[in-house]
């Protein structure tokens, strides 16, 4: 199953990967994607540390959600607009 990963702000800078096309087993959860990314290298481990928010297809979401084909998953720190 193909999904798209995006990162923003500090998460983007730490991971050094703004966009990544990823293949995951059918039925994977967002938590499993995070575990997989952390296993790739130290940069991803650091980038996904602490209170990182997750959006799935532009909606803030919970890590327990199950992925679907072509989902766009974004990881980023708490927002600071306004």
């Amino acid at each position, binding site marked *: 199953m193909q999904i798209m990963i*995006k990162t*923003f*702000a*500090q998460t*983007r800078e730490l991971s050094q990967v703004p966009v990544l096309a990823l293949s995951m087993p059918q039925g994977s959860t967002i938590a499993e994607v995070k575990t997989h990314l952390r296993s790739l290298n130290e940069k991803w481990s650091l980038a996904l540390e602490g209170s990182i928010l997750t*959006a799935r297809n*532009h909606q*803030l979401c919970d890590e327990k959600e199950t992925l679907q084909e072509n989902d766009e998953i*974004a990881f*980023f*720190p*708490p*927002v*600071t*607009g*306004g």
Partner: protein
Amino acid sequence: MFAEIQEANFNQDSLYHRLLANANNVSKGNSGAIVTFTGLVRDSNASGTIEGIELEHYPGMTEDALKKLVEQAIARFSLNSAGAVHRVGKLYNQDPIVWVGCSAPHRQAAFDGAVFLMDMLKHSVPLWKKEFCGDKSDWVEAKASDDKAALQWMKEQV
């Protein structure tokens, strides 16, 4: 209603009249109260002077989240209309960052709508500020007080 993410600056008079025209399309002659909020880059933070900020956003989601928020404000406070504009990119001290406006029959709803929009925007719209000064730049940390303000609105929601 309108919800926009842009690099360009905005004009108070244009946004005010755009909001009012929108409100009159919805309920002609019924707007007695218009509240606007404008946020500007301050020239210093807790650690000292800055030169400006760089605003990063999540293209696509930022627009969606801002639009949803404006629609929520209109429904929740029975506004005639509301609008929000948020700038992104490089901004210098005293540059305007954000504008929100609410139009309602009476003042309480217009004030509540604008406070709600700002509190929720700071909690759920994917925008990030990085302050710069010379070669140095630092991401702004989310404030616990901002989280608290947004959570209060979520708790009060029926």
